[in-house]
C-alpha cells in the first residue's frame, strides 16, 4: 500500500533539511545536528530498500544500519569534544568567528 518511492522521498527531504541546517546555522553544535539528520536519512534509505528487496533474509540493510548507528554515535562524541575544546580556546562556538586560518 505504501510504495517504495514514498520512503525515498521522505529520506531525501530529511537529507535536504539536514544539509540546509548544516550549511546555514552559525552555531557549531547545530552543524553537528544537521550532520546527524543526514546520517539518519541515509539509514532510512537503507532500511526501506532492504524491506522492498527480493531477498530480505540476507539482512544486509539492517547490518548496515546497525554499524551506521554505531559510527554516528562515535562521530558525535568526538565532534562534540572538538567543539568543547574549540570553545575553551575561542570562548565562542560561532563558526563565523573561528576563522583565524582564513586568508
Amino acid at each position: 500500500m505504501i510504495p517504495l518511492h514514498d520512503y525515498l522521498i521522505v529520506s531525501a527531504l530529511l537529507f535536504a533539511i539536514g544539509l540546509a541546517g548544516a550549511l546555514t546555522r552559525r552555531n557549531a553544535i547545530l552543524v553537528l545536528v544537521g550532520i546527524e539528520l543526514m546520517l539518519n536519512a541515509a539509514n532510512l534509505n537503507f532500511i526501506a530498500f532492504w524491506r522492498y528487496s527480493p531477498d530480505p533474509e540476507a539482512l544486509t540493510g539492517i547490518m548496515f544500519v546497525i554499524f551506521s548507528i554505531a559510527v554516528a554515535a562515535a562521530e558525535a562524541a568526538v565532534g562534540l569534544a572538538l567543539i568543547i575544546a574549540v570553545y575553551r580556546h575561542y570562548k565562542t562556538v560561532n563558526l563565523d568567528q573561528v576563522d583565524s586560518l582564513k586568508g
Partner: protein
Amino acid sequence: MQIAFAIIAALTLVSAIAAMSLRNLVHCALCLALAFAGLAAFYLQLGAAFAGWAQVLVYIGAVAILIVFAILLTRSGEGTPQPILSRSWGVGIAIAVLVFGVLAKAIMSSSLTSNSLLQKMPSKPEPTVHQIGDQLMTRYVLPLEIIGLLLTAAAIGAVIIAMKDAGKGQLTGPRAKATQMEIPPQSNNASSASHELEEVRS
C-alpha cells in the same frame, strides 16, 4: 497503513525543520530527539524491530543527551539576541534545494515508481534477533571487531580532547590557593594577547 505513514512522516519532517530553525538551542536538541523517535517509528513500520529499538537506545538515549550537555557546556551568556544564520546562508539554502531537486527527480523518473513489485510492502517474515546475531558472528565479524576498535578509540579520543590541560587541572586543598594566585596573571596575558589578535584582524 497510509495514515500511520503520513502521520510519522509529518512528525519527523516538522521536527527536523524545527530542529534546524529554532533560535533556542535546547529546543533544537529536543526537536531533534523527536525526529529520532519518528525515524524509529519508521523502522518499526518497515519491520526492522532491532534497528528501531537500537535507534531509540543509541540516538535518543545517548546522542541527544551528548548534544544537550555540549550545549550546556558552551553557553557564553544568553544576553543579546544574535542573528542565527551564518554569513553564507543563501548559498547553503540554494545547495540544499538543488540536492533535494536532483534526488527527487532521480527517484521519480527511475524505474522504481513503475515497478509493480515495489508498490506495496512485501509480507516477508520479520528477522529474529537470532538471525541478526548469527550474521554478526559469521559474515560480518570483521566489521564488528573494527567497530569495537573504533568505539574504543572514539571514547578515549573524546575524553582526551575535552579534558582540561594538565597545567590548569583541578586541584583541591591548600595547594590550590597557592597555585591559583599565580595563574590569573598568565591568563590575563593570554586573553589580552588574543584581544590584540582580534583587533588586528578586524
